[in-house]
């Protein structure tokens, strides 16, 4: 039986790698992929805690599988985020001809 701590450590490592990519990479598409990595790390944490608690402390359907339901919602929100984010990337590329986050600084003063 693998301790839940290992899963949480893996999720922490994955989240920090995603965060590193978001803060360091310049290509907007790669930044989006790193955001997906961070969302996946969060999902892994939800599922690890769901496995840690099992169905304890809930009625027949009260909190049963709440971690799994949260992971499901995160996946749905990630799909929406990817659709909107990539549409914005396309719009920016059309108006500026670049997806480099260093070149996109109109709103920076």
């Amino acid at each position, binding site marked *: *039986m*693998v*301790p*839940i*701590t*290992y*899963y949480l*450590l*893996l999720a*922490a*490592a*994955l*989240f*920090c*790698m*995603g*965060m*590193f*990519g978001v*803060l360091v*990479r310049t*290509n907007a598409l*790669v930044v989006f*992929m*790193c955001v*997906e*990595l961070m969302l*996946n790390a969060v*999902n*892994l944490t939800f*599922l690890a805690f*769901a*496995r*840690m*608690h*099992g*169905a304890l402390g809930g009625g027949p*359907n009260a*909190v*049963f599988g*709440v971690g*799994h*339901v949260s*992971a*499901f*919602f995160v*996946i*749905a*929100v990630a*799909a*929406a985020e*990817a*659709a*909107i984010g990539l*549409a*914005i990337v*396309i*719009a920016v590329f059309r108006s500026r001809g670049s997806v*480099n986050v*260093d070149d996109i600084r109109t709103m920076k003063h």
Partner: protein
Amino acid sequence: MNTELVLFGVFAVMTLVSAGLVITARSPINSAMALVSTFFFLAGIYVLLWAHTVAVMQVLVYAGAIMVLFLFVIMLLNLGEAAHRGRPTVTRILGGASAFGLLAVLAVTLGRTQALPAQMSAEVQGKFGTMAAIGESIFTTWLLPFEAVSLLLLVAMVGAVVVAKSRI
């Protein structure tokens, strides 16, 4: 050494290697391919956590739909390898260092905790993570959030068309 631990080790190492390739690959297409393999190995980890339904959704939605979207955008924009690496500005160095700092803090904190998987009765074990249990939960307790998510997806769909279309 039991089988579960060996499987976890293999999947964990492969996940981290693929994630490392995502953030270090020079060409976006290589990043996307490494991301697909990250999702597949993560699905394996989910199965080890008895979340087989979420693992299937992960492969279908992430490795299937979202990655196709990414690949289409890379193809549409015709992005090659980056001509130059990003300049190492102060913000960038500080950002990278803070990611390592967060990892150190989390590793120390989590290293002190002891958490073991729950012992489940045979009845609960048979239901845990199944489509039936999750579906029942979604359509009873979490019905309103579920409908909100469907509305969110509709808004995202319309929004993506409006943003990406050149002339409406």
